[in-house]
């Protein structure tokens, strides 16, 4: 191309690209790198103190933080496995159902996706009220159905709190994989399916041999996003269980612990920014590695198809 055009293009890159890059660097990249650096200093409240090497990491893996860390990590992992299994499968089920059904499709699409636009504050409070052991309708219905033993304090019992939270999460999010899968389904060339039907294949066979393999890209995206979401789980547990993961830490997550360490909690208000940042580094690494690794693995599966 002409050098004049080349020069003008370079100028344009300057005026059009640099601002966006600048904003990202100033408000995302630099803070992210700074968090990493914070982990290597000791802190006095919000004032940075002296260089502390790996001390914060050592503290993170010692009393009293180690137990909290292990519990939180366990909860995040359970969340990932359960959400991946149920939320994704249900999403696929709903997507396929919408794919097959003709009547009411538009209505179902709107309804399936509706909870995804609610704020988590709204979802959290709504379900807290529904599940209130005294006034909540859910327990009243259960009692009315004749099984009062099942009318448990779902969010208050340490053994049911986390599963209940995951259920609420599912209620709120299942529409997302559903719609992504639906788009994936609609993108499949209908000729393949028609040809298979003419050949006498059952719907089940069509699904297994044609549809599912071609949904691989959608599955990749959903898996990676679910992984990131599960290990950065914060909003819903915070709204419902508070920053301490009530009851008795049963709903504690890595992100909640990070918040506690950064800002303090109710009974003492004391925070530990150094250890919090060390935890931040840990979460970054976990999520980054997991996302990269998982997406590479799943990508390979896509290509093979």
């Amino acid at each position, binding site marked *: 191309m002409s050098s004049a055009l080349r020069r003008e293009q370079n100028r344009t890159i300057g005026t059009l690209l640099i601002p966006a890059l600048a904003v990202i660097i100033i408000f995302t990249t630099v803070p992210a790198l700074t968090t990493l650096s914070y982990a290597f200093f000791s802190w006095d409240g919000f004032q940075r103190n002296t260089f502390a090497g790996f001390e914060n990491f050592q503290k993170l893996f010692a009393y009293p933080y180690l137990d909290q860390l292990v519990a939180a990590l366990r909860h995040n992992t359970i969340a990932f496995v359960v959400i991946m299994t149920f939320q994704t499968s249900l999403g696929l089920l709903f997507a396929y159902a919408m794919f097959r059904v003709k009547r009411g499709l538009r209505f179902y699409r*709107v309804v399936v996706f509706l909870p995804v636009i609610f704020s988590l504050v709204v979802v959290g409070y709504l379900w807290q009220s529904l599940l209130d052991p005294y006034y909540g309708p859910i327990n009243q219905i259960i009692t009315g159905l004749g099984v009062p033993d099942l009318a448990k304090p779902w969010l208050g019992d340490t053994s049911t709190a986390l599963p209940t939270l995951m259920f609420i999460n599912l209620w709120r999010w299942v529409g997302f994989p559903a719609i992504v899968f639906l788009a994936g389904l609609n993108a499949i060339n209908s000729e393949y399916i028609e040809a298979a039907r003419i050949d006498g294949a059952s719907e089940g066979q069509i699904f297994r041999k044609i549809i599912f393999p071609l949904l691989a890209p959608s599955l990749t995206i959903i898996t990676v996003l679910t992984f*990131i979401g599960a290990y950065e789980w914060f909003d819903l547990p915070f709204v419902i269980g508070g920053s301490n993961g009530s009851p008795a830490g049963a709903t504690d997550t890595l992100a909640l612990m990070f918040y506690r360490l950064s800002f303090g909690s109710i009974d003492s208000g004391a925070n530990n920014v150094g250890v919090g940042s060390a935890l931040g580094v840990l979460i970054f690494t976990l999520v980054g590695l997991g996302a990269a690794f998982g997406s590479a693995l799943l990508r390979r599966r896509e290509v093979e198809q």
Partner: protein
Amino acid sequence: MIKLLASRTFFQSVLIINSLIVLLPVLFLFNSSLRESNEFARTPFALARDPFWENYQRVWSEGEFGSYFINSLVITGGSLILILILALGAGFVLGRYTFKGNNIIFAFILTGMLVPAKLAILPLFIQLKWMNLLDSRLGLILVYTSAALPAAIFIMSGFFKSLPTDLDNAARIDGASEFKLLSKVLVPLVRPGMAIVAIYSAIPIWNDFFLPLVFLQSPEKKTLMQGLTVFFGQYASQWGVLFAGLCLAALPLVVLYLILSEQFIKGLTAGAVKG
């Protein structure tokens, strides 16, 4: 043939059950918002035969929802404008220019999607303080914009890339500057992409309660979701009022969604669906 029908019935039932599970809690929420609080405590299930609109009145006046709503509007709207402007420019350059470093810069921007603002909250806090942008809506707008840009640029560059290159050449031959090419010729053609970016970015910003909690101190600057958490502390046990608050907070997006459901769905899953 029978098998086919049976399957369809099965799938219809699945969708009907899901619709019930989604809609019943929402309807319960709305119904309860119209009941007087003590009455609700006694009979949570009764239908609101005599709608108690006072709950909403109280939420609006005592709960200061009017000012929260405007703040949310200002912050979300401001962020959207900034995001669109920046993403259009960056998307154009990255999508249509070939130059050394294009791929690297693109990849760098994408990694921005891996960093949630929450984990960098403390440096952001200290940084904004140093820049004198704490307790400021502008500060919040800048942080939200930065968080939304990677995905926005990704989407916009995809749209720009898909446009035929002859357009560029034709415009240049006509003597148009690069900027005019972008603004007069290409932007009108990527409007669907802009709509998608707008929806994809606006909803998490509107729904966010965490960043305002940390970055906004003055009560008059509070956003809707943040105000809701404060509201809940003050009106605990006054069920009717609480539910009315929830409904009012959820209403704007729900209304928008019902009108524009197609675009919403496309917009929110845009980052996930390729092309």
